[in-house]
């Protein structure tokens, strides 16, 4: 089986997953072919070599976020990290209270874990973001109760790319003695993360959003002041008892290398991607009736989420098959429900349905951007030519006031 790249569209879906950087793949291979030991084997060099590589990778991951390597716990991905953080910390500190705060625009892995805690007798507050996708700090503060045990807020949103003010939110949590978990799966390599300064207790990471392999992630668990979590997976007592299971050495090595590269190249890479984003934005907003979803300033350069009014979302996706993009998050795009993230921003069903997430990255070229702009202009023009709504809008009819005849 061979990947037929010729037939493949241009990849503009880096927020769903990134390709593995060739340098990462190269570093991983020897740990599949030669140094295949179980890092838990203490009786022979196969085990030692694997363990050493795992610890080197742990250092690299810690370095990117300025943490102590001992604060990094390996997991199978951000979904597991989020589940472990939310369930593990809420359970451990349940004597403080059983109230959890999160945000309506969090990733499903966070929302579903929070919902699960509800079934276990916890109360939850899911804050609505402002129309720009950001949290009103005052509303966050007001939501905290004496029995609030944990708050979980993502650093960078997967659909609209907005960056929350983690420092301000974390400071409030410190004052109120609330455990603060941050899902940073979409943030690594895109924004600077300094955990020696950030008032964050738990932070989730993923490799496959930062040019590393799928199937590996990490959870940062602060040592000072020490945060405790109840393990969700029990067994051989790996990862200091917080997460049992044989460590997949090659994957961990891949994550370490991916995070090392991210640390080294982030600054230059972001400058380049920012230019591409600016070009994409100026090109696409030349099209009439386009709405950018989410704040444009407090946003990673890798993301643009735009609604094209008077175009039906599904037909738009079909029309632009030359590029691979998402409408809504990849994990829910199989359903025809409009994105719950855009709905939380107060977008109408129509605008939510006609939204496209363009997410770009390390291997996106200027010519990809130009092609995208040209393709969108052409296809949206065609689709609108066929749209009676567009025609009415052009004629100055206020569609909000139209009374539709019943069938």
């Amino acid at each position, binding site marked *: 089986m061979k*990947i037929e790249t010729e037939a493949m569209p241009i990849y503009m879906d880096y927020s*769903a997953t990134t390709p593995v950087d060739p340098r990462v793949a190269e570093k991983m291979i020897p740990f599949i072919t030669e140094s295949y030991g179980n890092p838990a084997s203490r009786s022979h060099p196969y085990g030692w070599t694997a363990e050493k590589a795992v610890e080197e990778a742990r250092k690299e991951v810690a370095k990117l976020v300025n943490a102590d390597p001992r604060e990094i716990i390996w997991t*199978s991905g951000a979904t597991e990290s989020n589940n472990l953080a939310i369930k593990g910390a809420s359970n451990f500190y349940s004597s403080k209270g059983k109230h959890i705060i999160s945000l309506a625009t969090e990733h499903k892995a966070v929302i579903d874990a929070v*919902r699960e805690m509800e079934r276990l007798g916890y109360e939850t507050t899911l804050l609505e973001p402002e129309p720009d996708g950001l949290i009103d700090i005052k509303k966050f503060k007001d939501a905290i109760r004496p029995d609030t045990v944990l708050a979980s807020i993502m650093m960078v949103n997967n659909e609209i790319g907005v960056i929350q003010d983690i420092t301000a939110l974390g400071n409030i949590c410190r004052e109120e003695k609330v455990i603060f978990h941050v899902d940073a799966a979409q943030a690594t390599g895109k924004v600077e993360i300094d955990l020696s300064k950030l008032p964050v207790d738990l932070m989730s990471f993923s490799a496959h959003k930062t040019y590393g392999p799928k199937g590996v992630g990490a959870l940062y668990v602060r040592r000072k002041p020490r945060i405790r979590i109840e393990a969700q997976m029990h067994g051989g007592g790996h990862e200091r008892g917080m997460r049992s299971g044989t460590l997949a050495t090659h*994957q961990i090595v891949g994550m370490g290398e991916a995070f090392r590269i991210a640390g080294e190249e982030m600054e230059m890479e972001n400058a380049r991607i920012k230019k591409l984003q600016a070009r994409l934005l100026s090109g696409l907003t030349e099209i009439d009736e386009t709405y950018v979803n989410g704040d444009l300033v407090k946003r990673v350069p890798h993301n643009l989420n735009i609604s094209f009014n008077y175009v039906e979302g599904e037909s738009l996706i079909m029309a632009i098959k030359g590029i691979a993009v998402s409408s809504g998050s990849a994990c829910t795009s199989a359903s025809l429900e409009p994105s719950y993230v855009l709905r939380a921003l107060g977008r109408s069903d129509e605008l939510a349905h006609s939204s496209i997430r363009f997410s770009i990255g390390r291997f996106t070229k200027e010519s990809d951007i130009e092609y995208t702009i040209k393709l969108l202009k052409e296809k949206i023009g065609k689709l609108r030519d066929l749209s009676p709504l567009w025609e009415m809008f052009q004629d100055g009819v206020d569609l909000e006031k139209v009374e539709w005849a019943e069938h």
Partner: protein
Amino acid sequence: MVYFDHNATTSIHPEVLDSMMPFLASQQGNPSSSHSFGKYVLTAIEEAREKVASSVNAHPSQVIFTSSGTESNNTIINGIAGSYPESHFAFSSIEHPCISEPIKSINAMGFENTLIPVDSKGLLNLSAISKHKQKKITFLSVMMANNETGVIQDMPSIVKWAKEQNIKIHTDAVQALGKIDIDFEALDVDAMTISSHKIYGPQGAAALILNKKIDLKPHMMGGGQEKGLRSGTENIAAIVGFGKACERVQKNIVIINSEIKKYRFLLEKELKKLGAVIFANEVERLGNTTFFAFNNIDGSTLLTALDRKGYAIASGSACSSNSGEPSHVLLAMGVNQELAQGALRVSLGINTKENEVKEFLQSLKIEVNRLKQLTAMAA
């Protein structure tokens, strides 16, 4: 270095690596994405699912991919606890900690459990359970083949016993896969755990095989992958590798039960001559596994000596190898603490060569005799 620790983890077969390479090197696409990148990887996962299912005669729809055997075992225990609040868990005293620990951890939530003893041969002793306890048990987990001793349980009788009491049954077949034939349908268990990195596939992929008679509350929540039973973006390269490794399972079973078993026979014959005790010697064991100890010889000294000579073997299971505790499996079989402390495991692989075993035996003879002399001098 000669690797004799295949029950800890195996090397990746070259064909498996080849199948993974496209997904490692140029992997693009999230299986949940609706564009062609996404569809391409989704197809790869479904093909792997068919191969995994076929290696144990299960239906592809019964296969749930997870990240490890540990996760599969935690998923079944916690899932059963979540769906059946009245559950009473039974497990054998020789289970891997990733079965015993999750069962113990939910004891605090009110889930009771029963430990089933094994006899001196390492076989499950169902008759030791009182009638009173028997009535309470609703779920039983039994390891098909033990990772340390290699002892193969009499699964058909155990399943029959469980069915008669209306007990749900799970088997951890991580060590059995690729070494003995497994037929999920004929076996008639409710759930089964298998793992990739013990069958010449990569680390990071495993499966829980589940018949549809039981409901399972998911262990990890989120994007709803694996029919909602295991959220999280799929580890595509590892899953593809797991599928490929499963295609080779039948071939491996033949090799293990012909050549490799012959080498093990040779190994054990010589070990006995040197005065070693071979654990569970009298019952059916995996063709590649020998667990042994010498009275009067310190196991860790012998392990270090053999390591210096270039042989990677193990003292018990990898997961507990840094604890310094004697094997819980041997203690459960009634082996005395001192002998158990010195136990060493040799687990051969499909690529093990006869001369490797013969050379190992020569080194072993020299080291054992040297250590015996040292012990005699000290005494």
